[in-house]
């Protein structure tokens, strides 16, 4: 090392150059870090850090991680892939931008030569994240990306900037002894040529700075169009789209009068949390059994109904519908639920079988989770028992349920729907529930008190004859049941108005 090759080097720099080893004269990011030249790891890290736009890259990486964390923290921590389905396209943009920001930051470290490109890319990604991902990660990621990208853009290695700055101004006599100098000379020549064309360095900087503005302007123009396909369904990047389920159940309220009061069993059997359907084959007795049968879970019939209930005929079986009995069953008093059906297996009455239809509405499927609806009172207008139907169950098979209709129903006195699912109780409460515009209720069990007399009905205890008599009664005047308990309620209504609603666990 003889003397500084540029005349305007400061004295300190000259000394540094003289004392520094030979390879120090090339920019550090162009050579492998020489860790032996430094005493400790920290010093080595500092050298590595100072030789590249470290802070800018770091801010970009942090911005990317923050963008990723907002939509994905649930997924990252637990691997709950199910959540990704819900995140859909909005989250995909956030993930994409986050990953690209991290990549830009890392590339700034390992490839500082192209720092301008990565810096501009980081700024543009940060700006794009504002509409695309959680308002730019709640502003934080956007600001970090702008600052980080600008820092990286503004970073320059000392040697290179010196020469670039000096190049146009004062060409010192370059020495052709070293490769680097030769390269510099080429660069200077290029700069001169650019100056001839009137494009100075300042102009270049401004033109580069205008790039994000142009890109964002274009982005804004297309954002309106880009957002439209999201509403179609579950689409990933607008390319891979999953079609939704086709048919929607159309609730068909058929208001026809008839009462079906049912016995009240306060100690209704606790629903089992297991979603699996017990393969019960209910053997209903033709006459109304006074003892309410405890049906702890959804009583799925083990044999799936023929043709799986795909095309159920709603009105087909209604001619043979059994009718409700308002008769108070003496044995069905509260607190004595005894399994009356289990004793006589295999005796399926013909009348009952005729009344049992496939499904009410196509697409109607009952859940396997157990659910109980409690209400202090229920006032039912035009209440009618329509018969026993086989409703397909989500976990397979079908389930025998009673079908009731009413033109309107008003539930009061603290309505509670308790759903037990996966060992967890979900409780929905409302002081009142008002069903209107026609209501259809399917249930595996309906209990209540009519004028103080407890009644309870299950598909096995419903009596066609008695219910038909009751239908005549209830068609005339609305009936009021108190202490209503309904198991596995499946209700369809044209309208529903709740009071102060609360859903919790």
């Amino acid at each position, binding site marked *: 090392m003889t003397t500084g090759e540029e005349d305007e080097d400061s004295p300190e720099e000259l000394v540094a150059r003289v004392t*520094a080893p030979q390879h120090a004269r090339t920019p550090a990011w162009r050579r492998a870090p020489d860790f032996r030249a430094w005493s400790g790891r920290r010093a080595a890290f500092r050298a590595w850090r100072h030789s590249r736009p470290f802070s800018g890259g770091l801010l970009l990486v942090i911005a990317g991680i923050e963008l990723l964390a907002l939509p994905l923290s649930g997924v990252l921590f637990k691997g709950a892939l199910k959540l990704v389905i819900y995140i859909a396209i909005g989250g995909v943009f956030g993930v994409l931008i986050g990953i690209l920001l991290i990549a830009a930051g890392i590339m700034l470290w390992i490839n500082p030569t192209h720092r301008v490109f990565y810096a501009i890319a980081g*700024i543009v990604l940060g700006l794009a994240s504002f509409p695309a991902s959680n308002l730019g990660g709640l502003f934080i990621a956007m600001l970090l990306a702008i600052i980080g990208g*600008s820092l990286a853009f503004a970073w320059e290695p000392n040697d290179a900037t010196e020469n670039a700055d000096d190049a146009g101004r004062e060409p010192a006599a370059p020495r052709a002894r070293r490769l680097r100098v030769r390269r510099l000379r080429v660069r200077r020549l290029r700069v001169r040529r650019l100056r001839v064309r009137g494009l100075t360095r300042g102009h270049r900087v401004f033109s580069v700075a205008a790039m994000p503005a142009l890109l964002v302007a274009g982005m804004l123009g297309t954002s309106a169009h880009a957002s439209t396909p999201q509403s179609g369904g579950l689409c990933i990047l607008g390319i891979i789209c999953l*079609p*939704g389920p086709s048919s929607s*159940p159309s609730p068909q309220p058929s208001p026809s009068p008839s009462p079906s009061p049912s016995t009240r069993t306060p100690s209704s059997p606790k629903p089992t949390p297991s979603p699996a359907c017990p393969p019960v084959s209910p053997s209903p007795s033709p006459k109304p059994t006074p003892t309410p049968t405890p049906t702890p879970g959804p009583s799925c019939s083990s044999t799936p109904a023929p043709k799986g209930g795909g095309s159920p005929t709603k009105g087909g079986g209604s001619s043979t519908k059994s009718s409700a009995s308002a008769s108070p069953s003496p044995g069905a008093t509260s607190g004595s639920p005894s399994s009356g059906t289990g004793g006589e297996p295999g005796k399926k009455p013909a009348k009952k079988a005729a009344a049992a239809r496939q499904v009410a509405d196509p697409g109607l499927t009952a859940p396997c989770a157990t659910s109980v609806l409690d209400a202090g009172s229920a006032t039912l207008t035009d209440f009618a028992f329509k018969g026993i139907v086989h409703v397909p169950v989500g976990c397979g098979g079908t389930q025998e349920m009673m079908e009731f209709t009413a033109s309107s129903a008003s539930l009061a006195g603290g309505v509670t729907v308790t759903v037990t699912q996966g060992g967890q109780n979900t409780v929905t409460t409302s002081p009142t529930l008002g069903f209107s515009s026609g209501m259809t209720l399917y249930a595996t069990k309906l209990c209540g008190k009519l004028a103080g007399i407890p009644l309870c009905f299950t598909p096995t205890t419903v009596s066609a004859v008695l219910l038909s008599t009751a239908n005549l009664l209830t068609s005339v005047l609305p009936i009021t049941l108190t202490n209503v308990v309904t198991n*596995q309620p499946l209700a369809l209504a044209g309208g529903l108005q*709740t009071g102060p609603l609360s*859903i919790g666990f």
Partner: protein
Amino acid sequence: MPTDSNAKRSPASGKVRWRRFAIVAVPSVAIAGALIGLTAKGAIASSISVSGQEFLVTASQLNGTGFEQFGGEVPGTNNSQNPVVISAIHHATLANLCQSVTVGPVTLRLTAGGGGNLVSADNLVVDASGQTGSVATFHNITIGQDAGTLTEDPGTAGTPGGFGQQADSITIDNLVQHTWLTTAGTFTLPGLSIGFGKSC
């Protein structure tokens, strides 16, 4: 040498030129400000998708079409599963939306949709651990439908076997939700303001 700071440089390092920094940072911040302003006016739709932190969402009224609700779980802290009620609304408008999340001592608060300019959201999915409302009105509701067969919000359904409900349209007044995860394909937030302060 062009600048006075050159004397301090070590030979193998680089440094940030603050003039260059300003040349890029100033227009970028200006663009960001314009984006924020346009979003606050409701001219740009945003995409919202947050999870992993329970936050509070309130709205004076929610109107929605294509409503589904079913049970689910989201992973919580220390390996537990938090039961949630998942509400999916195909298209929703909200009045006086307020979201707040408390992280440590800081509460971040986002409000939008005041003064008659409704917030609108498409493909809104909310995983809530609790939900209350003063009055709720549903049209063409089905309660107790199998969660796997819900059809009101195409593309969203629960686990087969689970308890679900759906409705053509829904109106909830004075909605309060404790939410674990909110996603929406598009969120238009007129009158957006974000700040620190009290929770909703």
